[in-house]
């Protein structure tokens, strides 16, 4: 049971840190991208269609970095391979 406690608590803590640290960079980048796009639209309102389309594509590509962090933290919480391994080990020990 000791190993299970360690694995569970470490997974939860690390998944929290993963999403917290992993969101810093993408959010800064998204803010910068939106601010620049707004400046560009303010300077050239005629080009707002092109700017908006490029902005959305760029935002989605920036956001996918944050999504990678989310996937890792989700795997740590819901589909942790070490947790499953420890559970099967514990069950085998009980039997």
């Amino acid at each position: 049971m000791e190993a299970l406690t360690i694995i569970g608590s470490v997974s939860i803590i690390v998944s929290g840190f993963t999403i917290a640290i992993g969101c810093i960079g993408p959010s800064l980048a998204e803010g910068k991208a939106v601010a620049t796009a707004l400046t560009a639209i303010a300077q050239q309102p005629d080009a707002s269609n092109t700017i908006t389309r490029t902005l959305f594509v760029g935002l989605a590509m920036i956001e996918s970095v944050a999504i990678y962090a989310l996937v890792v933290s989700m795997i740590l919480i819901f589909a942790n391979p070490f947790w499953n391994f420890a559970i099967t080990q514990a069950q085998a020990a009980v039997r």
Partner: protein
Amino acid sequence: MELSPDEVVYWTFGYAKLNKTIVTTWFIIFFLSFFSWLVTRKMTNGIEISRWQNFLEIVVGGIRDQIGNIGIKEPEKYIGFIGTLFLFIATSNIATIFPWYDAPTGSLSTTIGLAFMVFCAVPFYGIAQKGIFPYLKSYIQPTVIMLPFNIITEVSRTFALAIRLFGNIMSGSIILAILLSIVPLLFPIIMTVLGLLTGIIQAFIFAVLSTVYIAAAVQNKEKVKSN
């Protein structure tokens, strides 16, 4: 909580499982093929065309123009592959407005399969366009030292392509599930609308990135210099 529609299994026969991903994927495939068959059955090139043929002409023409904008000289050669990717992903993401439906792109097996198709299509089109040795030569392009890095790039961008689509759709459905347990009234609808937007954008990005990879494989040396 389910991470992916893979975990909803309808029918098991030995090793083979019939899960929700397969069912929804086949449903999307049948819908797209049946719809296209129904429309193109009475296709004409006269002045009077039916409204659905008009719709499909807009879709196909738009995809062809987008592929051409990225820098491929003959978009007609690649529209079958790239357009199918875009239409499949877009349809499966839009169909989340139906109840009891989970997008098959929210499962890692689907997105890995789609990205693997891109992974195979890039050398296929590259060899078909340039011949086998000029294509293989592009792997050692600056120097021979770059060979392992070029191979790593090929593999890692495939995984990035798969995980980007999977993560976006999966995070949308998980945020929806969390919101349903906290604020079940009206607010999940807003997130669903946002999810539809994200789905379309992700389908667009998937198609654009595969086009960029294929364009990098098929473009000629002289064209690069002229640019």
